[in-house]
Protein backbone atom coordinates (compact mmCIF):
# COMPACT_ATOMS: atom_id res chain seq x y z
CA UNK A 1 0.00 0.00 0.00
CA UNK A 2 2.72 2.47 1.03
CA UNK A 3 4.66 1.62 -2.06
CA UNK A 4 1.65 2.37 -4.22
CA UNK A 5 1.16 5.69 -2.45
CA UNK A 6 4.81 6.61 -2.88
CA UNK A 7 4.68 5.61 -6.50
CA UNK A 8 1.57 7.69 -7.12
CA UNK A 9 2.99 10.64 -5.21
CA UNK A 10 6.12 10.50 -7.31
CA UNK A 11 3.95 10.47 -10.39
CA UNK A 12 1.93 13.44 -9.20
CA UNK A 13 4.99 15.46 -8.25
CA UNK A 14 6.65 14.69 -11.54
CA UNK A 15 3.57 15.55 -13.57
CA UNK A 16 4.22 18.36 -16.02
CA UNK A 17 0.70 19.80 -15.67
CA UNK A 18 -0.74 21.50 -12.61
CA UNK A 19 -2.57 19.16 -10.25
CA UNK A 20 -4.62 22.08 -9.00
CA UNK A 21 -5.06 24.88 -11.47
CA UNK A 22 -3.43 27.86 -9.79
CA UNK A 23 -5.15 30.08 -12.30
CA UNK A 24 -7.94 31.97 -10.57
CA UNK A 25 -9.96 32.91 -13.63
CA UNK A 26 -13.69 33.35 -13.19
CA UNK A 27 -14.83 32.12 -16.57
CA UNK A 28 -14.38 32.50 -20.29
CA UNK A 29 -15.89 34.12 -23.35
CA UNK A 30 -17.90 31.47 -25.15
CA UNK A 31 -19.59 33.37 -27.98
CA UNK A 32 -18.75 36.80 -29.32
CA UNK A 33 -20.05 38.93 -32.17
CA UNK A 34 -19.23 42.49 -33.31
CA UNK A 35 -17.25 44.84 -31.09
CA UNK A 36 -16.87 43.69 -27.50
CA UNK A 37 -14.22 44.90 -25.09
CA UNK A 38 -13.00 43.81 -21.69
CA UNK A 39 -11.57 46.39 -19.34
CA UNK A 40 -9.06 44.82 -16.98
CA UNK A 41 -7.29 47.17 -14.56
CA UNK A 42 -6.10 49.85 -16.98
CA UNK A 43 -6.04 47.73 -20.09
CA UNK A 44 -8.80 47.57 -22.64
CA UNK A 45 -8.80 44.23 -24.44
CA UNK A 46 -10.77 43.11 -27.45
CA UNK A 47 -12.91 40.15 -26.44
CA UNK A 48 -12.30 36.92 -28.34
CA UNK A 49 -13.70 33.44 -28.15
CA UNK A 50 -12.01 31.43 -25.41
CA UNK A 51 -10.60 34.50 -23.65
CA UNK A 52 -10.51 34.15 -19.88
CA UNK A 53 -12.57 36.45 -17.69
CA UNK A 54 -11.46 37.51 -14.20
CA UNK A 55 -13.14 39.15 -11.22
CA UNK A 56 -13.17 42.97 -11.60
CA UNK A 57 -13.39 42.74 -15.40
CA UNK A 58 -15.83 45.13 -17.07
CA UNK A 59 -17.36 43.77 -20.28
CA UNK A 60 -18.79 46.28 -22.76
CA UNK A 61 -20.52 45.68 -26.09
CA UNK A 62 -20.71 48.18 -28.96
CA UNK A 63 -23.68 48.97 -31.20
CA UNK A 64 -23.13 45.79 -33.22
CA UNK A 65 -21.75 43.75 -30.32
CA UNK A 66 -23.03 40.85 -28.24
CA UNK A 67 -21.25 38.32 -26.05
CA UNK A 68 -21.92 35.14 -24.06
CA UNK A 69 -19.78 34.28 -21.00
CA UNK A 70 -19.69 31.08 -18.96
CA UNK A 71 -18.28 31.23 -15.44
CA UNK A 72 -16.53 28.35 -13.63
CA UNK A 73 -19.70 27.21 -11.86
CA UNK A 74 -21.66 27.27 -15.15
CA UNK A 75 -23.34 30.61 -14.48
CA UNK A 76 -24.04 32.18 -17.88
CA UNK A 77 -24.19 35.90 -18.70
CA UNK A 78 -25.23 37.05 -22.18
CA UNK A 79 -25.11 40.69 -23.24
CA UNK A 80 -26.91 42.36 -26.13
CA UNK A 81 -25.65 45.53 -27.91
CA UNK A 82 -24.61 48.67 -26.01
CA UNK A 83 -24.47 46.80 -22.74
CA UNK A 84 -22.07 46.83 -19.84
CA UNK A 85 -21.49 44.23 -17.14
CA UNK A 86 -19.07 44.55 -14.25
CA UNK A 87 -18.04 41.29 -12.59
CA UNK A 88 -17.22 42.76 -9.19
CA UNK A 89 -16.48 39.57 -7.31
CA UNK A 90 -16.35 35.87 -8.08
CA UNK A 91 -15.45 33.00 -5.77
CA UNK A 92 -16.03 29.35 -6.59
CA UNK A 93 -14.19 26.94 -4.27
CA UNK A 94 -16.68 24.10 -3.76
CA UNK A 95 -14.44 21.92 -1.56
CA UNK A 96 -14.17 24.80 0.93
CA UNK A 97 -17.79 25.80 0.55
CA UNK A 98 -16.88 29.33 -0.51
CA UNK A 99 -19.00 30.96 -3.15
CA UNK A 100 -19.68 34.50 -4.31
CA UNK A 101 -21.10 36.09 -7.42
CA UNK A 102 -21.38 39.87 -7.38
CA UNK A 103 -22.09 41.47 -10.73
CA UNK A 104 -23.47 44.80 -11.84
CA UNK A 105 -25.63 45.15 -14.91
CA UNK A 106 -24.74 48.76 -15.71
CA UNK A 107 -26.85 49.23 -18.86
CA UNK A 108 -28.21 47.33 -21.84
CA UNK A 109 -29.89 43.96 -22.29
CA UNK A 110 -28.92 40.76 -20.52
CA UNK A 111 -29.83 37.13 -20.15
CA UNK A 112 -28.63 35.48 -16.95
CA UNK A 113 -28.68 31.76 -16.13
CA UNK A 114 -27.81 30.33 -12.72
CA UNK A 115 -25.08 27.73 -12.37
CA UNK A 116 -23.89 25.52 -9.52
CA UNK A 117 -23.62 28.42 -7.07
CA UNK A 118 -27.33 29.01 -7.69
CA UNK A 119 -27.96 25.43 -6.53
CA UNK A 120 -25.40 25.18 -3.71
CA UNK A 121 -25.59 28.67 -2.22
CA UNK A 122 -28.22 30.94 -3.84
CA UNK A 123 -27.73 33.64 -1.18
CA UNK A 124 -24.13 34.08 -2.40
CA UNK A 125 -25.39 35.55 -5.66
CA UNK A 126 -26.09 39.23 -5.94
CA UNK A 127 -26.84 41.09 -9.13
CA UNK A 128 -26.86 44.87 -8.87
CA UNK A 129 -28.41 47.32 -11.30
CA UNK A 130 -28.75 51.13 -11.14
CA UNK A 131 -32.42 50.69 -10.11
CA UNK A 132 -32.20 47.86 -7.59
CA UNK A 133 -30.64 44.52 -6.74
CA UNK A 134 -31.93 41.12 -7.82
CA UNK A 135 -32.20 38.07 -5.59
CA UNK A 136 -32.23 34.87 -7.62
CA UNK A 137 -33.59 31.42 -6.85
CA UNK A 138 -32.01 28.99 -9.30
CA UNK A 139 -33.28 30.35 -12.55
CA UNK A 140 -32.90 32.19 -15.83
CA UNK A 141 -34.04 35.74 -16.45
CA UNK A 142 -33.68 38.60 -18.91
CA UNK A 143 -33.10 42.22 -17.98
CA UNK A 144 -33.29 45.52 -19.81
CA UNK A 145 -31.53 48.40 -18.06
CA UNK A 146 -31.90 51.95 -19.34
CA UNK A 147 -31.22 53.66 -16.01
CA UNK A 148 -33.08 56.39 -14.19
Amino acid at each position, binding site marked *: MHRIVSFLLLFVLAAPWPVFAADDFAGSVK*NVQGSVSVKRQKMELKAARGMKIYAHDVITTGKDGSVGIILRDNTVFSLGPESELELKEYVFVPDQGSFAVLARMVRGTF*VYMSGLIGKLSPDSIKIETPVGTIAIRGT*RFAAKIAGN
Partner: protein
Amino acid sequence: MKGIVIIVPCLVLLLLTACSSQKNMFVLLPDQDGKVGSIEVINDKGSSVANKPGECVSVAGSNSKPQAAPALNDAQVRATFAEALAIEPLQPQSFLLYFKTDSFELTNGSFELLQPILAAINKTQSTDVSVIGHTDTAGSKEYNFTLSTKRAQTVRDLLVKRGVDPVIIEVSSYGEADLLVPTADNVKEPKNRRVEVIIR
Protein backbone atom coordinates in the same frame (compact mmCIF):
# COMPACT_ATOMS: atom_id res chain seq x y z
CA MET B 1 -71.43 45.25 -27.97
CA LYS B 2 -69.36 45.73 -31.07
CA GLY B 3 -67.43 48.45 -29.22
CA ILE B 4 -66.54 46.07 -26.39
CA VAL B 5 -65.40 43.45 -28.85
CA ILE B 6 -62.90 45.93 -30.23
CA ILE B 7 -61.95 47.64 -26.96
CA VAL B 8 -61.19 44.47 -25.00
CA PRO B 9 -58.55 43.10 -27.40
CA CYS B 10 -57.05 46.61 -27.58
CA LEU B 11 -56.81 46.78 -23.79
CA VAL B 12 -55.24 43.34 -23.68
CA LEU B 13 -52.74 44.38 -26.32
CA LEU B 14 -51.96 47.56 -24.37
CA LEU B 15 -51.40 45.59 -21.16
CA LEU B 16 -49.22 43.02 -22.90
CA THR B 17 -47.00 45.63 -24.49
CA ALA B 18 -46.73 47.52 -21.22
CA CYS B 19 -43.75 45.60 -19.81
CA SER B 20 -41.71 45.44 -22.98
CA SER B 21 -41.90 49.23 -23.25
CA GLN B 22 -40.51 49.76 -19.74
CA LYS B 23 -37.17 51.48 -19.27
CA ASN B 24 -35.96 48.94 -16.75
CA MET B 25 -37.42 45.49 -16.58
CA PHE B 26 -36.69 41.97 -15.42
CA VAL B 27 -38.39 39.00 -17.03
CA LEU B 28 -38.34 35.49 -15.60
CA LEU B 29 -37.52 32.82 -18.20
CA PRO B 30 -37.58 29.02 -18.14
CA ASP B 31 -34.16 27.32 -18.28
CA GLN B 32 -33.18 24.82 -20.97
CA ASP B 33 -35.01 22.03 -19.14
CA GLY B 34 -38.14 24.19 -18.89
CA LYS B 35 -37.67 24.73 -15.15
CA VAL B 36 -38.51 28.10 -13.60
CA GLY B 37 -37.29 29.54 -10.28
CA SER B 38 -37.94 33.05 -9.07
CA ILE B 39 -36.38 36.50 -8.94
CA GLU B 40 -36.99 39.35 -6.56
CA VAL B 41 -36.12 42.92 -7.49
CA ILE B 42 -35.31 45.01 -4.43
CA ASN B 43 -34.52 48.69 -3.86
CA ASP B 44 -35.00 51.29 -1.10
CA LYS B 45 -38.64 51.80 -2.09
CA GLY B 46 -39.73 48.18 -1.96
CA SER B 47 -39.55 44.87 -3.81
CA SER B 48 -41.44 42.69 -6.25
CA VAL B 49 -41.24 38.98 -7.10
CA ALA B 50 -41.64 37.16 -10.41
CA ASN B 51 -42.08 33.39 -10.18
CA LYS B 52 -43.88 32.32 -13.38
CA PRO B 53 -42.40 32.14 -16.89
CA GLY B 54 -42.65 35.50 -18.67
CA GLU B 55 -43.56 37.36 -15.48
CA CYS B 56 -42.12 40.82 -15.42
CA VAL B 57 -40.99 43.33 -12.81
CA SER B 58 -40.54 46.91 -13.95
CA VAL B 59 -38.72 49.74 -12.16
CA ALA B 60 -39.10 53.34 -13.37
CA GLY B 61 -35.92 54.46 -11.58
CA SER B 62 -33.89 54.06 -8.41
CA ASN B 63 -36.45 56.18 -6.53
CA SER B 64 -39.41 54.13 -7.73
CA LYS B 65 -40.85 50.97 -6.24
CA PRO B 66 -40.30 47.77 -8.30
CA GLN B 67 -43.69 46.72 -9.64
CA ALA B 68 -45.22 43.63 -11.17
CA ALA B 69 -45.91 44.32 -14.83
CA PRO B 70 -47.89 42.19 -17.28
CA ALA B 71 -46.13 39.04 -18.42
CA LEU B 72 -44.31 38.88 -21.75
CA ASN B 73 -45.14 36.16 -24.24
CA ASP B 74 -42.42 34.30 -26.17
CA ALA B 75 -42.57 36.64 -29.16
CA GLN B 76 -42.16 39.71 -26.95
CA VAL B 77 -39.25 38.12 -25.08
CA ARG B 78 -37.57 37.28 -28.39
CA ALA B 79 -38.17 40.78 -29.76
CA THR B 80 -36.89 42.60 -26.68
CA PHE B 81 -33.83 40.43 -26.02
CA ALA B 82 -33.09 39.18 -29.56
CA GLU B 83 -29.30 39.72 -29.60
CA ALA B 84 -28.63 38.57 -26.04
CA LEU B 85 -30.69 35.41 -26.63
CA ALA B 86 -28.98 34.71 -29.97
CA ILE B 87 -25.50 34.85 -28.39
CA GLU B 88 -26.48 32.92 -25.22
CA PRO B 89 -24.17 29.91 -24.81
CA LEU B 90 -25.69 26.50 -24.28
CA GLN B 91 -25.61 25.27 -20.71
CA PRO B 92 -22.36 23.40 -20.08
CA GLN B 93 -22.63 19.65 -20.47
CA SER B 94 -21.46 17.29 -17.76
CA PHE B 95 -20.43 13.64 -18.02
CA LEU B 96 -19.59 11.18 -15.25
CA LEU B 97 -17.02 8.44 -15.82
CA TYR B 98 -16.76 5.64 -13.26
CA PHE B 99 -13.74 3.64 -12.13
CA LYS B 100 -12.98 0.17 -10.85
CA THR B 101 -12.37 -0.09 -7.11
CA ASP B 102 -8.98 1.26 -5.86
CA SER B 103 -7.94 1.78 -9.45
CA PHE B 104 -7.58 4.40 -12.11
CA GLU B 105 -9.00 2.09 -14.75
CA LEU B 106 -12.35 3.12 -16.24
CA THR B 107 -15.30 0.75 -16.05
CA ASN B 108 -16.20 -0.65 -19.47
CA GLY B 109 -19.43 1.30 -19.65
CA SER B 110 -17.63 4.54 -18.89
CA PHE B 111 -14.97 3.90 -21.50
CA GLU B 112 -17.74 4.03 -24.08
CA LEU B 113 -18.64 7.53 -22.90
CA LEU B 114 -15.37 8.93 -24.28
CA GLN B 115 -16.85 9.13 -27.77
CA PRO B 116 -19.90 11.23 -26.77
CA ILE B 117 -17.56 13.49 -24.74
CA LEU B 118 -15.33 14.08 -27.76
CA ALA B 119 -18.39 14.70 -29.93
CA ALA B 120 -19.70 17.28 -27.46
CA ILE B 121 -16.33 19.08 -27.29
CA ASN B 122 -16.21 19.26 -31.09
CA LYS B 123 -19.84 20.19 -31.56
CA THR B 124 -19.76 23.07 -29.08
CA GLN B 125 -16.21 24.05 -30.15
CA SER B 126 -15.45 24.21 -26.45
CA THR B 127 -12.36 26.05 -25.25
CA ASP B 128 -12.93 25.23 -21.58
CA VAL B 129 -13.10 21.65 -20.32
CA SER B 130 -12.83 20.68 -16.64
CA VAL B 131 -11.78 17.18 -15.61
CA ILE B 132 -12.44 16.61 -11.90
CA GLY B 133 -11.39 13.46 -10.05
CA HIS B 134 -13.16 11.89 -7.05
CA THR B 135 -12.98 8.72 -4.95
CA ASP B 136 -15.18 6.89 -2.47
CA THR B 137 -14.27 6.90 1.24
CA ALA B 138 -12.41 3.55 1.29
CA GLY B 139 -8.79 4.30 2.26
CA SER B 140 -7.15 7.37 3.80
CA LYS B 141 -7.86 10.93 2.72
CA GLU B 142 -4.31 11.39 1.44
CA TYR B 143 -4.35 8.17 -0.51
CA ASN B 144 -7.71 9.07 -2.04
CA PHE B 145 -6.57 12.52 -3.03
CA THR B 146 -3.71 10.98 -4.96
CA LEU B 147 -6.00 8.37 -6.47
CA SER B 148 -8.55 10.99 -7.60
CA THR B 149 -5.74 13.02 -9.16
CA LYS B 150 -4.54 9.99 -11.06
CA ARG B 151 -8.08 9.26 -12.22
CA ALA B 152 -8.49 12.79 -13.53
CA GLN B 153 -5.11 12.63 -15.27
CA THR B 154 -6.06 9.30 -16.85
CA VAL B 155 -9.17 10.88 -18.37
CA ARG B 156 -7.20 13.92 -19.45
CA ASP B 157 -4.66 11.68 -21.21
CA LEU B 158 -7.40 9.69 -22.93
CA LEU B 159 -8.95 12.92 -24.27
CA VAL B 160 -5.61 14.37 -25.38
CA LYS B 161 -4.70 11.09 -27.09
CA ARG B 162 -7.94 11.44 -29.05
CA GLY B 163 -7.12 14.90 -30.28
CA VAL B 164 -8.34 17.35 -27.61
CA ASP B 165 -6.00 20.34 -27.21
CA PRO B 166 -4.41 19.99 -23.73
CA VAL B 167 -4.48 23.78 -23.33
CA ILE B 168 -8.28 23.79 -22.96
CA ILE B 169 -8.35 21.11 -20.23
CA GLU B 170 -8.18 22.00 -16.55
CA VAL B 171 -7.52 19.06 -14.23
CA SER B 172 -8.45 19.12 -10.55
CA SER B 173 -9.21 16.59 -7.84
CA TYR B 174 -11.15 16.45 -4.62
CA GLY B 175 -10.23 13.01 -3.25
CA GLU B 176 -13.08 11.88 -1.01
CA ALA B 177 -14.15 15.45 -0.14
CA ASP B 178 -17.05 15.71 -2.59
CA LEU B 179 -19.11 12.52 -2.54
CA LEU B 180 -21.89 12.06 -5.05
CA VAL B 181 -23.53 9.54 -2.72
CA PRO B 182 -22.94 10.48 0.94
CA THR B 183 -21.48 7.58 2.95
CA ALA B 184 -19.63 6.98 6.21
CA ASP B 185 -15.81 6.73 6.11
CA ASN B 186 -14.28 3.56 4.63
CA VAL B 187 -17.24 2.67 2.44
CA LYS B 188 -16.78 1.37 -1.10
CA GLU B 189 -19.33 3.14 -3.28
CA PRO B 190 -19.04 2.73 -7.07
CA LYS B 191 -20.96 5.96 -7.74
CA ASN B 192 -18.37 7.98 -5.81
CA ARG B 193 -15.42 6.59 -7.81
CA ARG B 194 -15.80 9.01 -10.65
CA VAL B 195 -14.36 11.71 -12.84
CA GLU B 196 -16.64 14.50 -13.91
CA VAL B 197 -16.01 16.07 -17.30
CA ILE B 198 -17.60 19.50 -17.76
CA ILE B 199 -17.68 20.96 -21.26
CA ARG B 200 -18.27 24.69 -21.35
